């Protein structure tokens, strides 16, 4: 008897978008089942239906042979379905413990904080990582927030566990740990549905895979019986080149010079502690590190969104320390933040989001030239293959990956001289990932300087000409790409000076 049996699922969103067109999705008990598909294929939608968050327009769901109709997630949780979202669903201002408590209440309304605390500690022991229980979630790095999510779901004793792109923000070591945990759970008979864009991971961990395409199932296959290339083909119906052709870099003059920079985080603690960096024309400098080691603060200080209290930043021979962000953008800096919540205005439409960081580019004497803005937006949508029905669609109605494309794409089309980009391929499908990476290399070849901040070491190793490793607000090491291996990076990121 299958654990999950979703039949003929159709989903039409209120704005008329048909996200699922009669999907059949069957997961056997005790397997890890991969769910693959391009951005906007309908993966999240399908899982949100299974989790009871939204209702299907048509179709039936059976759980362990019994038909269910969930009234809401609480209903699903009681039936043993747990979910870790692509965008985390934790209450930001609550502490971790409060969040865990909140989640546990839907299972056991009588549970006390002490019990939750005990249980949480047990589970942390069990999965082998720790999260700080007494800090507000919003003050934690995304990677840690994700761990909270996983602990949370595990504490709920879910029989079916859904993970929507869980690895996109984890380091390889963390991913390994996660996989160990998942395998352990499988042993205990827990059924796991795993969404990812990384074929390597699919191969590594799943037993079977279902591939979705434009709201329809392309097929369900045993993982052992297919190669990564087969999967890629099923997804995008063409061959995908997995490695990028990259000519050696021809670095030019220094365009960004950071000296002894000190920056505080939101809590007022030092997050960047005396960083010195140089970035040259025509090179990609990768910054590797575990989330929360000062990358965000560094990037924001460079972009001018966050004040540095010591040190200097020089851009193209101009001292920009203390210069407002918008002035820096005008000088040719561009910045892609690691959070879509920051980079995008969810309630604005595509065009309005595209001009967010390029306002002066579409205004003439304070007037917004909407024609021009639309042209640029169209350009972004076309070049980056954004799946969207109209430029007037609110960005919140786009799938995660398509939002990401808009956020990165709008900066790329500006052809910035200095491009600070954080997690550029977060949540993108392989085709889009490949395209964005290729574009970054092209920019480099045009002589632009790129500062690539990523927790994805493959990405760092694949794209960077030079690499700097950041740990607790300091640069642990910096050097040519060739000097680093995956293992060495992993150690350095953990603070071990090998």
């Amino acid at each position: 008897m299958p654990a999950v049996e979703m039949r003929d699922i159709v989903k039409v969103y209120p704005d008329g978008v048909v996200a699922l067109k009669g999907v059949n999705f069957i997961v056997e008990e005790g397997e890890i089942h991969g769910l693959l598909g391009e951005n906007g294929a309908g993966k999240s939608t399908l899982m949100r239906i299974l989790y009871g968050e939204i209702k299907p327009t048509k179709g039936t769901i059976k759980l362990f042979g019994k038909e269910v109709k969930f009234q809401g997630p609480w209903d699903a949780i009681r039936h043993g379905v747990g979910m870790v979202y692509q965008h985390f669903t934790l209450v930001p201002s609550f502490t971790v413990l409060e969040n865990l408590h909140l989640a546990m209440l839907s299972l056991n309304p009588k549970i006390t904080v002490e019990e939750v605390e005990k249980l949480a500690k047990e589970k942390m022991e069990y999965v082998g990582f720790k999260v700080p229980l007494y800090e507000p979630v919003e003050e934690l790095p995304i990677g840690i927030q994700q761990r909270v999510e996983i602990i949370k779901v595990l504490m709920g004793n879910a029989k079916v566990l859904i993970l929507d792109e869980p690895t996109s923000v984890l380091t390889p070591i963390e991913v390994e740990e996660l996989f160990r945990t998942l395998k352990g759970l499988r042993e205990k008979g827990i059924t796991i549905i795993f969404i990812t864009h990384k074929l390597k991971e699919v191969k590594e961990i799943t037993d079977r895979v279902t591939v979705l395409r434009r709201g329809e199932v392309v097929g369900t296959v045993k993982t052992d019986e297919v190669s990564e290339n087969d999967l890629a083909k099923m997804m995008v119906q063409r061959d995908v080149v997995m490695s990028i052709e990259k000519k050696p870099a021809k670095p030019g003059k220094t365009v960004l010079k950071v000296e002894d920079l000190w920056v505080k985080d939101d809590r007022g603690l030092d997050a960047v502690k005396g960083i010195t960096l140089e970035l040259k024309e025509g090179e990609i400098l990768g910054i590797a590190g575990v989330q929360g080691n000062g990358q965000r603060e560094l990037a924001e200080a460079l972009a001018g969104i966050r004040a540095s209290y010591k040190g200097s930043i020089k851009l193209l021979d101009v001292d920009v320390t203390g210069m407002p962000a918008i002035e820096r953008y005008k000088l040719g800096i561009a910045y892609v933040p690691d959070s879509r919540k920051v980079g995008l205005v969810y309630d604005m439409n595509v065009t309005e989001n595209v001009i967010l960081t390029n306002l002066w580019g579409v205004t003439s004497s304070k007037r917004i030239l909407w024609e021009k803005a639309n042209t640029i937006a169209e350009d972004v949508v076309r070049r980056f293959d954004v799946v969207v029905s109209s430029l007037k669609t609110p960005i919140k109605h786009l799938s995660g990956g398509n939002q990401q494309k808009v956020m990165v794409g709008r900066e790329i089309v500006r052809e910035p001289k200095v491009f600070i980009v954080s997690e550029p391929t977060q949540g993108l499908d392989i085709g889009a990932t490949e395209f964005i990476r290729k574009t970054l290399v092209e920019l480099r070849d045009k002589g632009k300087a790129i500062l690539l901040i990523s927790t994805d070491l493959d990405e760092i190793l694949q794209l960077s000409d030079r690499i700097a490793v950041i740990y607790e607000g300091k640069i642990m090491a910096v050097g040519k790409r060739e000097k680093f291996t995956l293992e060495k990076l992993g150690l350095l990121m953990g603070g071990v000076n090998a």
Partner: protein
Amino acid sequence: MPNGELVGKAFEIVMSLAIAFSVGAIVLVILGYNPIEVYAILFKYGYGNVKYLMNKSTPLIMTGLAFAIPSIAGVFNIGGESQLYVGAFTALMTAYYTNNPLLALIVGALAGACLGWFIGALRVYRGINEVITAIMVNWVFFYVITYLIAGVFYNPQRPHESIPVPENARIKPIGDLSVIFSIAVIVALAYYYLLYYTDLGYRLRVSGLSPSSARYAGFDPSKAVLTSMLLGGAAAGLGGALLVLGITYNIDDMLSAVYGLGFTGIGIGLLGRNHPIGIIFSALFLSGLIIGGQWVELKTGAPPELADTLMGVIVIALAIPYVYRMIFRKLAEGRQ
């Protein structure tokens, strides 16, 4: 697509109104009144005297904007009330002492803007929630202006009134055209343009929707708070100025000429969906109801509060466009 959207919007509005008036009719029947008679009077008199209607809606358009503009930038301005008071008062003083209506309008708008800015500034620089400030400031100015009119700037001929706007500083209609209404409409259009066609408006909107995105884009959300309160306050202040220069020509010492216009503005702003063009229509709509309500009392003998009740019901029924949209969608689906 845009065509369908437009049809949808229009349908939504028509539907909202139809349902609102139906609910109102039910309430009227329950209360023992003949809805057809009441509505006939309401519409005939409420919307029949165009000049009156235009004048009546003039200050309401302005206080509607006073709520809407800050609201778009994420500020809840219930201080339109006092911003209108100071606008009316300072415009009156200016007109009295200079005989210059244009200057009076400017001064009134500036005074309102200053007060709006003050509320915004307390929030930005002192972290004081604008709701407290606005409510407190409303009452403070109510009493201060009461004092100034009753005790200082009263009209010696008619001591319950303030000194009047001099004859040559009054803004009179040109033929059948209400000049003050035209000014209000022009201001609303200007605000519309500002919000949707200029970079300032864009910044305000981004700041209101997502302050962190605004910061990322290099806009200062605090500035948006201040600017929007400045713009909103200016609108309310100008509304007060237009009221005294174009309609009442003085303020009575109980402030009955100005009292309540700011609060009504909140409803107007929201019914107009915080959109300047929408606000023009919602102000006309509500003004008609208010005017007509007075005649319902005269013609049917119903207590004047019947109009308040009816208006309340209609406004509540207009609060739920989502439902009508859903019904519209269901109907559209059904037809397919």
